[in-house]
Every structure is written in structure tokens, then in C-alpha cells.
């Protein structure tokens, strides 16, 4: 019971995160506030936004108020403004630092995770649906249909996934979130199909099926109402595992430059961009990577809990 609560909590926090990711980001994840002054600030940096009475804003790295003037320092310039022109000062805090274009890494990480999670969850559910349909059809009809479907499953399993994904994406031309979801789900249903089929075959021999058969229920009704709900149980546990796998695959695709394209951030393409300037901006790859690992770990952990209960 306690473990179910944990899974429930995780599910709720993921939903909350997905619905509010756009709102809770402190800065714009795609357009920089000030490309010149805010570029490549290390983690825990501060900057200030000075609003003047004519409505203009100046972004400064440091300021000091002295003798009726406000003296400020930017990356390349410094200057002073009369104090009475100043309307307000806003402190900008970059907890994860900023990237080379002056965008807040924290905002980008939060915002970018949305795509990884949506792709992971949606395509694993789609893969689940495909797998359950194939598996139950094979298990229900048996005979030649079973043979054909299982051979097809074998062929799909024999493809090295990552290679096939790359080939498909390369030859499909443009890729959107939608096409990514389709491709990733088409490559991950095989395990579930095998599981469901095996369960179907096992359950068909069970006594409760014999009992409903002897009552005289039609076969299709037995398959859908009595066998299917029991057969998908072990496959349900593998959903988080598949989600984890898909999130990893998606991040690899983004990293290689085949996934969602910048400027839209994803964890994968953030790390890919970070790799280009590893020496000067070491903090860029760290946070997206930690978040990918945590997400995947969470999914693996859920399936661990699930398989125990």
C-alpha cells in the first residue's frame, strides 16, 4: 500500500510538472534577455535589471549607488545614471548559470524536460497499445496468425533499435514531436507483445477460463472480458521501463542532432550544444544530464517497485 502511494505521488508530480513547466520557469527559455551581458555566467551568478523612468531597461552585472548617481558595470562597459531616473531594480538570479547565448540554464532545463517526458510517456503508451493488440491477437487466434505475428515480432526485435531509429528519421525527412513519438513507439512494442501472448496462452489453460467456457459464453467475450485484463498485468509493469528506454533514446537522438531542433531546448540537444564549449563553460552539460539520469532512474525505480507488488 505504501509503495502504491509512492507511485501515485510520482505520477501526480509528473502531471503537475508537465502542466506547469511553462509557468514556473523564471526566464524565457528560448529568447535571451541580454545576449551580450548575460552570456556564459557560471552557476549561482547574479545580475541586475535596472528599469529607468523612460521605460528602458539596462542589464548590469554589478552596481553601486554613490553621491546621487548609480554606477554600473556591464561585461564590456561601465557607466553612471542619475539616481532620480531609476525606477526599480530587479535582481536576476541564475542558479544553474547561463549559456553562451545568455539564456538561463535552469529555465531551459525545466522547459526542455517537458518534451522528453511527453515523448517518453506518450510513445510508451502507444507501444503498449500496439504490443497488447499484437500479443492478444496472436494468443487468441493461435495457428498461422500467431506464427506470422510472432515472426514479425522477431524481425523487429532483431533490428538494432538505435540504428533503425536513425535510418527512419534520416529518410523521413522532417521530424516533429509527433513523428518521433510514432517512430519510437513502433520500435518498442515487441517485448510487450511477447509478454501478453505468453500470458494469453497460459491463462487459456486456467480453470476459470474453463468455467466460463462451460457456462457457454462466446469465445470473443471470454478473451476480452476474462483473459485480456489478466494478461496485460505483467505488461503494465514494463511501461515505466519502456518509458525510461525511450527517454534515453530520445536524448541520444537529440544529442546526435536528429531529434527536436534548437532553439527549442531538450535535455539531449542542450548537452550537445554544451559539448562544443566544454572547456570554457563546464556547467552547461551537468544539469540536463543529472535530470535525464534522475528521470530514467525514477522510471526504473517505479518498475522495480511494481514488480515487487
Amino acid at each position, binding site marked *: 500500500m505504501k509503495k502504491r502511494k509512492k507511485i501515485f505521488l510520482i505520477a501526480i508530480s509528473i502531471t503537475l510538472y508537465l502542466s506547469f513547466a511553462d509557468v514556473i520557469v523564471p526566464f524565457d527559455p528560448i529568447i535571451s534577455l541580454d545576449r551580450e551581458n548575460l552570456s556564459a555566467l557560471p552557476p549561482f551568478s547574479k545580475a541586475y535589471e535596472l528599469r529607468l523612468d523612460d521605460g528602458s531597461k539596462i542589464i548590469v552585472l554589478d552596481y553601486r549607488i554613490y553621491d546621487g548617481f548609480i554606477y554600473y558595470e556591464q561585461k564590456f562597459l561601465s557607466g553612471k545614471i542619475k539616481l532620480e531616473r531609476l525606477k526599480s531594480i530587479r535582481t536576476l538570479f541564475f542558479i544553474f548559470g547561463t549559456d553562451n547565448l545568455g539564456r538561463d540554464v535552469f529555465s531551459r532545463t525545466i522547459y526542455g524536460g517537458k518534451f522528453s517526458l511527453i515523448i517518453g510517456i506518450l510513445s510508451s503508451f502507444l507501444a503498449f497499445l500496439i504490443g497488447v493488440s499484437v500479443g492478444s491477437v496472436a494468443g487468441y487466434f493461435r495457428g498461422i496468425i500467431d506464427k506470422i505475428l510472432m*515472426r*514479425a515480432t*522477431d*524481425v523487429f526485435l*532483431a*533490428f*538494432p*533499435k*538505435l*540504428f*533503425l531509429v*536513425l*535510418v*527512419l528519421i*534520416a*529518410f*523521413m*525527412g522532417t521530424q516533429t514531436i509527433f513523428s518521433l513519438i510514432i517512430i519510437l513507439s513502433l520500435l518498442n512494442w515487441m517485448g510487450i507483445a511477447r509478454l501478453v501472448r505468453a500470458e494469453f496462452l497460459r491463462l487459456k489453460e486456467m480453470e476459470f477460463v474453463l468455467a466460463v467456457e462451460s457456462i457457454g459464453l462466446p469465445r470473443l467475450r471470454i478473451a476480452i472480458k476474462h483473459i485480456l485484463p489478466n494478461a496485460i498485468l505483467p505488461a503494465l509493469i514494463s511501461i515505466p521501463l519502456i518509458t*525510461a528506454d525511450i527517454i*534515453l533514446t530520445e*536524448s*541520444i537522438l537529440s*544529442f*546526435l*542532432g*536528429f531529434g527536436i531542433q534548437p532553439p527549442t531546448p531538450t535535455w539531449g540537444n542542450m*548537452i550537445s550544444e*554544451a*559539448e562544443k564549449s*566544454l*572547456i570554457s563553460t*563546464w556547467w552547461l*552539460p*551537468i544539469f*540536463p*544530464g543529472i535530470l*535525464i*539520469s*534522475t528521470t*530514467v*532512474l525514477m522510471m*526504473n*525505480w517505479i518498475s*522495480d517497485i511494481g514488480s515487487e507488488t
Partner: protein
Amino acid sequence: MGIKIALKKMSFILKRFVNSIFLSFGIATVVFFLLRILPSASFSDVYLNPRLSEEAIQKIKSAYGLDKPVLIQFLNWLKEIITGNFGFSFIYRKPVINCIGEALTSTLIVGIPALIYSFSVGIFVGIQSAKAQGKLLDRIMYSSFLVLYSIPSFWLGIILILLFSYTFRVFPPSGLHSFNFSEMSFVGKIYDTAIHIFLPAFTLGTAPMAAIARFTRNMMLRVLSQTYIKTAKAKGLDQKTIFYKHILPNALLPVITLFGLYLPLFFAGSIVVEEIFSIPGIGKLTVDSIFQRDYPLTVGITLFVSFIVIIGNLISDILYSIFDPRIRLK
């Protein structure tokens, strides 16, 4: 009796072998028709100059056999593949099979140490974790398997470069050799290669290592709860005999089959690792061929790696049938 079992095993292996041939055929079929269905895969979109005359287009098509019916094309293509002709790379101006052969060396130089590392360390750590079952050590080890398994290899690679190449300057960040490799002595060459492949092999092998360790631990625990272990203990056998004669062989049997299943994983992993460490292997060749739209090469590599997956599965089947006397030989 012994001959009968041996014959049964032979026929089992033969059956798996025939099955693999059918699988390879299936894969070749899927790849061929995928290329016909998907947009931008055919010649006409990508490679033909729009100013070419109709006549010239026909000439090019007939040169590549594209003017014939699809079924004839398919059969021709299949014939070429069976004879080992995977086509001709557009970019490298070489037969695809030669490109793959050259890249394979680099991939194996990194892949084989990674394979050895992941299996030896994985099995060892898994056994230690199972031995300490229920203790704090086991818990720590088990959670670290989960964590290591969840870290994406490209990120691990980048962090390792950041730490060991840029901060501590212990290992070089890229390539397989130093620039003055040809002037080195034999020992120097070995040392040079070793320090170059250390980080990539570690990156490539860590996630499989964690998976193998986890699997080994679970198998060990399963065996430990069996009644025959209790019997052995009740008989008064000493711990060492029980461990080496009864627990270990039974627990490691399923681990051996992982060898065949994990072989393709190293090829898939090489895509990422070779990209990060700039190693001219199969993975980098794949990514480059896709970016440069060198589609005979892409298809050739996909087929090649698929065949490796099939061979890997066959190897694990054969290993299992040799080592496990209980296997159902149907």
C-alpha cells in the same frame, strides 16, 4: 544416451540456425521496402539534378537498375547481398563492405575491452552484492547499479572528458592514437592506444556493467533460495564447495546468455561514444552517412549490424544449449 542428447542438441542448433537465416531474410526485405516507401530515400529526390534531361534520368536509372519492376529489383538486390556486395558508397567512393571493414577495427579496439570490462566487473560486483544480501553494502551496491544503469552514456562520456582530460589531464579527450603514433616503439604504441581507449571503453561498458551486475545478483539470490542449496548445507558441505560447485554454476548460466544479447548493445553504444571521442568506427560512420545522405552506406551498416544481432542471439542460444542440460529441445 549421450549420443542421443548430442544429436538432439545438434538438431536444436541447426533449427536455430535455419531460423536465423529466415530472420536475416526478413530483415533484408523490411529494409528494402522501407527504402521504397519512405520519402527522400529514393534517388530521384536527393541526387538528381533538376536540370537533367529526361533521357539522362532514364540512363542513370537503368544504370542502377531502377527502371525494372520492384520485384525484380528486390531479387537482384537480394542476390547482391548474398554474394557480399552491399553497394557502393557515394561519399567515400569505395564498396560499402570496405568502409565497414575499416571502421570495424576501430570499433572493436574500443568494444572488446568494454565487453571484457562490463562482464568481468559486472559479474564480480554482482556476486559480492548477493553475498552481502540484506546488509547495508548490498543496498548501496544495488542502488548504485540502478543509478549507473540510468546514466546516459553520452553524458557520462562528457563528464569523464571534463574531469580526466581537461581538469586532471590524465587521459586524452579524443581519437585513438597520438599524432606521432607511427614513430613510437611497440610498447609505446600499446601504451598510447591503452590511454586513448580507456575513457571510451569505460563509457561504453558502464551501463551494461550495471545491468549485468544487477542480473547476476538477482540470479544468485534466486539460486540461494533453492532447496538444493539447503540440502547441500544440511549435508554439511563446507561453504566454499557449496559456493563454487552449487551456487556459482547455476547462477552464472543465464548470465552467459547475456553475452549474445549484449553484443549488439555495444554497436549501438558505439554510435554515441565514437561521436563524443571522435573515433572513426562503425558508429561515427553511421552518423556521418546519415548526415551526408550516403544511403547505400546507411543501409549497408543497418544490415550488417542486424546480422550481428542475429548472430549474437544464435550464439546465446548455442551457449545455453551447450551449458544447460535441462533446456527444452523442441
